[in-house]
Structures are given as structure tokens and as C-alpha cells.
């Protein structure tokens, strides 16, 4: 059996969890085993309704009032119990902030290693093989994890969604007992959650700017383009972030976020090797730069050699015209 951890935030299931479950279904089918899912938290019925028909044979609900707020210790403890009881061959997590916090904690608890931020999973002679970018994508590493269960986190926006099934999952509810003193830290507050903003790492389209943006106003302009595109977020090069034009949570590259959106727009980004590492796995790359020699053009599917301050408003207009 392959178990998928379904992340619930604000009572909602994250899309990356459904992508992870989809890949678990494909891998489980190739191994001839079942795909199951697990939700951890409290009062999970709303989230459960979202995943009932997503192809898991069984869905485990691990609930406790003490798990209402995320804690790596409490959640790892709950998952450890389920893993020991059901002995899955593998446990998959989405490689989100929570998945990347929790999966290694569970791994160490079970005494097994893990593969982080995988972008491909294959099955050969009944064994799972995990491919993951290293050096922020400058190289690809393929590994197997001989100990059981194999634990992996899967990069968002990489694995395609499987259609829902007509069969509803069997629901197994458990109340988890958290021993006193077992949880020494937990989330007390979430700040700045607007609900509207999409993180660069999760966006389907990234609109990024570099040195040629000249200042924070340039990023306001990119924000206008992102606003007319579906599920888009604004990204930035290290130079732009280090110049203070935009917050570092937008930085793409080896010392920022590694992204794989459907479209990556690079406006005035020359294409330093550490930036290319963080975005070259994007499905379509668009480069806009005044300098025709910019290395970014070498990896771009489409290029425009022009002043970005003229191209961006023209793009906003062209996209708006589509909707009209």
C-alpha cells in the first residue's frame, strides 16, 4: 500500500496534495498495491468531502483537539501510529512548507531516510525509484530507498491530476491520544494570509523580474500582469531581492525557490547560472530583455528583444483582449 498525506490548511485540501495522491495511485497501480490517504487534524469532515472520490481505497482520519493546530511533533506521532499499524510500502507527502517540515520528522521517527522534492517516480521490479533535482536542478539524482517505508515529498505543479473516481473511499476514523509533554512547540498564529496571493512555488504562471526592473515600481507593473493571468505569482531574481525592490519570499533560484510553473516569464533577467537552476524546469519559458545576448534567451521557448516597460503593458492589453 502507498499512503499519501493530505495537507489541510484552513479546512481546505491543497491542490498539491491531490497531485501527490494522483502520483501515488499511478505508482500503486504499477506495483499492484492499493493507494490510501491520511488526513491529520481536528474537525476534518469538510476536507474529507473534497477527497472522498479522489481514488484512495481507504482514507484514514487521525483526529484530536490537540492536533487542531499544526505541530511537527504531534503530527509525526499520529502518523507513526498509522504507519506501524498499516505497514505501507511508501508514504508520499506534497513538498510544501508543511510536507517538508513533517516528512523528515516522521522519517527519523521511523528510522528511515527520505527523498525530498521529487519530480519523477518510477517502479521497476516492484521497487520505487525517485528522481529529484539536486544543486537546484543543475543535476538530477535518481535514488531508491531500501528501508521500508520509502518516504518522499513530491514537488507541486509537476505531477498531473488523475480524474476522480465513482467509487467512494472507505473512511477509517481514529482519535489520537497525544501524551502530555510530547508536543513542545506548535503553530500559534498564521500571519499575512490573504487567501488571494499565490506563492511563487505553487503558482501555475510566474511573472519574474530582474535587475532591469530598476526599482519597486517595476514590480508593481509585474503585479498588474500577474493579476490578469490565472493562478499567477510575481517572482524575482536575487539582484532584485538584494536591492530591496521585493521581498525575499519571491526570490527564484538556488538561494531562493525552485519553481516548475506552466509558464515562466523572465523580464529583464539576464540568466545567472544560480537563477537558471531554479526555473529551467518550467514547462514554457518566455524571456524579455533589451540585450539579445542575455543567457536567458538560450533556455527560452519564446523571446522578445525589447524594453520590458513597453512589453509588459502590451501583454496586459493583449491578455485582456482575450477575455473581451
Amino acid at each position, binding site marked *: 500500500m502507498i499512503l499519501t498525506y493530505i495537507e489541510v490548511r484552513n479546512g481546505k485540501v491543497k491542490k498539491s496534495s491531490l497531485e501527490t495522491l494522483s502520483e501515488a495511485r499511478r505508482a500503486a497501480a504499477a506495483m499492484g498495491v492499493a493507494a490510501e490517504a491520511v488526513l491529520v487534524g481536528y474537525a476534518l469532515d469538510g476536507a474529507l468531502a473534497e477527497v472522498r472520490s479522489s481514488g484512495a481505497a481507504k482514507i484514514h482520519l487521525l483526529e484530536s483537539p490537540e492536533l487542531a493546530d499544526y*505541530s511537527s511533533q504531534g503530527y*509525526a506521532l499520529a502518523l507513526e501510529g498509522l504507519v506501524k499499524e498499516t505497514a505501507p510500502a511508501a508514504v508520499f507527502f506534497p513538498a*510544501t*512548507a508543511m510536507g*517538508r*517540515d*513533517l*516528512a*523528515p*520528522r516522521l*522519517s*527519523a*521517527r521511523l*528510522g528511515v*531516510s*527520505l527523498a*525530498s*522534492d521529487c519530480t519523477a517516480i518510477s517502479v521497476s521490479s516492484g521497487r520505487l525509484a525517485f528522481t*529529484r533535482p*539536486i*544543486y*537546484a536542478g*543543475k543535476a*538530477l539524482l*535518481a*535514488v*531508491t*530507498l*531500501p*528501508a521500508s517505508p520509502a518516504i518522499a515529498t513530491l514537488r507541486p505543479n509537476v505531477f498531473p491530476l488523475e480524474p476522480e473516481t465513482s467509487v467512494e473511499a472507505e473512511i477509517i476514523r481514529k482519535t489520537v491520544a497525544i501524551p502530555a509533554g510530547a508536543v*513542545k*512547540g*506548535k*503553530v*500559534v*498564529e*498564521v500571519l*499575512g494570509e490573504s487567501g488571494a496571493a499565490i506563492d511563487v512555488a*505553487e503558482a501555475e504562471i510566474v511573472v519574474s523580474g530582474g535587475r532591469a526592473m530598476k526599482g519597486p515600481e517595476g514590480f508593481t507593473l509585474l503585479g498588474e500582469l500577474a493579476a490578469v493571468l490565472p493562478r499567477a505569482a510575481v517572482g524575482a531574481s536575487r539582484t532584485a531581492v538584494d536591492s530591496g525592490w521585493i*521581498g525575499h*519570499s519571491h*526570490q527564484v533560484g*538556488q*538561494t531562493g525557490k525552485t519553481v516548475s510553473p506552466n*509558464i515562466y516569464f523572465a523580464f529583464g533577467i539576464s540568466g545567472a*547560472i544560480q537563477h537558471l*537552476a531554479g526555473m529551467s524546469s518550467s*514547462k*514554457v519559458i*518566455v524571456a524579455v530583455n533589451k540585450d539579445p545576448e542575455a543567457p536567458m*534567451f538560450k533556455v*527560452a521557448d*519564446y*523571446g*522578445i528583444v525589447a524594453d520590458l516597460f513597453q512589453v509588459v503593458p*502590451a*501583454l496586459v*492589453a*493583449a491578455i485582456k483582449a*482575450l477575455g473581451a
Partner: protein
Amino acid sequence: MNVLVFVKRVPDTESRIRIDREAKSVVEEGLNFIISPYDEYAIEEALRLREAKGGKVVVASLGPVETLATLRKALAMGADEAVLIKDDRKETYDPLRVARVLAAFARNRQADADLLLFGRMSVGSDNAAVPSMVAEILGLPQANVVTRLEIEGATATAQREIESALEKISFSLPAVVSAQKGLNEPRYETLKGIMAAKKKTIPVLTLSDLGLPEEASVPQVEVMNIELPAAKQAGKILAGTPEEAARELVRLLRTEAKAL
């Protein structure tokens, strides 16, 4: 307040990576090595905590003997002590192996540490797993990808980056914290610091000094293959005025790339 900071020697982020496919490893020859960039935020935070609250800063690393240069830099920044845990194995991409060694070091040699600081990940192996694993092995709470840290007696609050928001975590000390860019602005080494660092002795430990059995150092991750990603072909340059090029781009994104 005693702070233990773990650092790693990694290839410079500006490096071009070459692969030895036979050996299933990265070619180290010709690479310039640096301290993993996020580790500098961890060192800086440790130094600031010492300046505010007293105590000492110990920096430790698991790696080959060349890591002594990395540790020297940490001493030059202002760390009180540095320790090398010598390991001649090449990169194993196995975070549990590293975590077991670091946790044994913390438990056996630095039991008085109030805080264990890491960079949020070492650039290269890109697992971002060792801090959480060390926390689990030692039974400590964790706060990863932290951009703000406040300590009040034996409790701490940290802000960590999550998707489009910040999570505020409250936890007790001792604890494991991993640093994200934005936590602080790391200082440069001063000439005085560099001179002082040269005079310090860096003890070198082996895995057996830490009481680790041989099997603890055998990787659990089996490397099947390392390769370079497929090279991308340069695409189309769209001609015309900015307006024409923009319209053509939108058309191609819809009809040819089917991405819009």
C-alpha cells in the same frame, strides 16, 4: 545561552556542475567550495544571541578535512569554537545518516546547548531534512525556514515562511531552528577576526569518537544515477513592435504551447 550551529561545505552556487556517470557523483575537481549560504544566517543569529544574552557559539560540521577552511570562516565571523567531525565519504544524499551523526555529537559533546541552529537547507543535496531529523532524534521541537526568532527565557517564538504567509510557532528550549534568508544580514569577517581564527585550534573528531557503530554511517539512500538535465533548445525570437510581439506571444502561448 549556548548556541550550536551546524554548517556545511558546498560548491559555490555560481558553479557549473559536472557529473562522473561511472562514479555516480559530482566532479569535485575545479569546483570552488563555500559555506552553504543559509548557514551564514544561522551563524549570524547565533552571534547576535550571544551578544544579547551571553554564552558561547560553537560551530560544527560533518565533512572532509577541507571543511576546516569553512569552519575557519565561521570562527572569523566570531564563533567561539569550531569542531570538525571528519567524514571521508563523498556526498551520500542521505539526510538521516547526517542527522544521526550530528545528533550524536550534540548529545555526547554539546549537551549544554540551548539552541541548535542550521541553515534551512544545504545547497546541493537540497533535502532540507537534516534539521527536522536531528530535532526528532533528540526529542526537541523544531522551527524551520525561520525569518524571525525571539527568545524569552526558556521559550521562543519564531516566524517561518509558508506558502504566501508566515506561521508563528511557539516552542520551548532547547530546540532546533533552521534559518531562512531574511532572518538577518550576516556580517563580514574582520581582519581581526581572521587573525584570531587562525590562532584557534579546531578539534577533529571521527565517527567512532562519537560512539557511533559502523552501520550508522552506511547510507540508506542508494544512488542509481546522476545526470544533467536535458539541454533546452533556444526558441523563437518574436519580431515586430512591442505590441505586435506581445500579441504574437499570447497567440503562441495559447495555440502552440497550449499553456494559457
